[in-house]
């Protein structure tokens, strides 16, 4: 099910991230990063930082406002708190992605599902672990993109988590508008349908 390069650009990165694991990837300006949902319905929690100034970081709600729409797909510009363009979604075979729902944490799991989830692994544990080597700590964590995740927002102001629209082999491609750190958590959540109740591996394919 892995995808192989079909262009002449060098494949600089080709790796599988296991369910519940993460990655910190440096993508140079102009580089293209594909995230492949190998088995379908797998939420991939992702943060973007200017590699030369991590305070210039992805802003979910500025991105939503600038495009006047909640869901992300091809053409969505991912902007920072300074309104700099960090990256653009340049290909998307899934159709839409969430950036309202944030990342799971041990603490938010307790609130949502109960005390029994206190010590289950969660995305923000992964973010802190992989972000540390880039200087990304608790203060630098912000609200992420959830690739392949389906969080419908309704005209009456409601919000739910639902089964994904994704399927095995669906992918999304991000093209970096400047040198970036891309911090990824392949979500381990088992208490809601965001991973189809069964977290699975993803593939990262970088061309630059």
């Amino acid at each position, binding site marked *: 099910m892995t995808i192989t390069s079909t262009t002449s650009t060098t494949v600089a990165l080709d790796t599988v991230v296991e369910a519940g694991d993460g990655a910190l990837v440096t993508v140079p300006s102009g580089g293209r990063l594909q995230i492949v949902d190998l088995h379908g319905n797998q939420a991939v929690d992702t943060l973007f930082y200017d590699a030369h100034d991590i*305070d210039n970081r992805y*802003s*979910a*709600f*500025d991105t*939503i*406002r600038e495009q*006047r*729409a*909640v*869901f992300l*797909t091809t053409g969505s510009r991912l902007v920072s*708190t*300074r*309104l700099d363009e960090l990256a653009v979604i340049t290909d998307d075979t899934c159709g*839409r992605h969430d950036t*309202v*729902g*944030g*990342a799971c*944490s041990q*603490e*938010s799991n*307790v*609130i*949502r599902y*109960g005390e029994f989830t206190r010590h289950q692994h969660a995305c923000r544990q992964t973010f802190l672990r992989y972000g540390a080597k880039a200087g990304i700590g*608790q*203060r*630098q*964590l*912000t*609200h992420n993109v959830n690739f392949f995740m389906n*969080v*419908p*927002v*309704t*005209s009456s*102001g*409601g*919000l*739910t*988590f639902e089964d994904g629209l994704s399927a095995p082999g669906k992918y999304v491609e991000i093209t970096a508008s400047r040198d970036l750190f891309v911090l990824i958590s392949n979500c381990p959540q088992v208490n809601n349908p965001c991973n189809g109740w069964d977290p699975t591996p993803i593939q990262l394919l970088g061309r630059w």
Partner: protein
Amino acid sequence: MTLDHTHEVPGGAAWSAPVRAGRTITLTALADGANATMLIIGADRLDRLNIPDTLKSQMSARIKPGMVLMSDRGLALATVTASTLDWHDCLTGALPDQLLLLELTKHGFGEPDLHACINFFSKVSVADDPRASLTYVTDHAHTGDTVTLRADQDLLIFLSTASHALSDGPSASVAVRLETPDHTPDPELREEAIRALRLTRELIA
């Protein structure tokens, strides 16, 4: 004895204040189309308002009475105890705001603390179309509209009265009133919100 505090924040300004646990914060729109963008930082000066966690644990895409505003670490920061409006925007952020950034800097914070905000008094409607398209609602808040929060731990609140980023109208003044009631009962809350409040009272409040 704690005195009440009132202040009128003029349009296009920024303001910040500490708010002790148990106090209430009432904002009043002093003109039609007012906007009050708020950031909240918790008692330990690291834990911040987390809009995604607030929304997904209470199945809402807007801020309304009967919601607990939750922190990054799953604690209750404040409870929205009353409002004349049932929709306060929290999906469209705020433009870079030098005055708000200066207020953060006065308290030792800065750009890394520009977490998601609430735009009190503003509404951005969501369409039931494939992208969930957004439209700023021009006739939402009117003079005299209010919202009241109860602080559930010691807070720092940061407020900007710049116009909403999607509004082409003028900015408007907002009145702030801090009071110390003997007791502010919980409004009707979801079980997730009750859990957050209980944990907060057990751990830090």
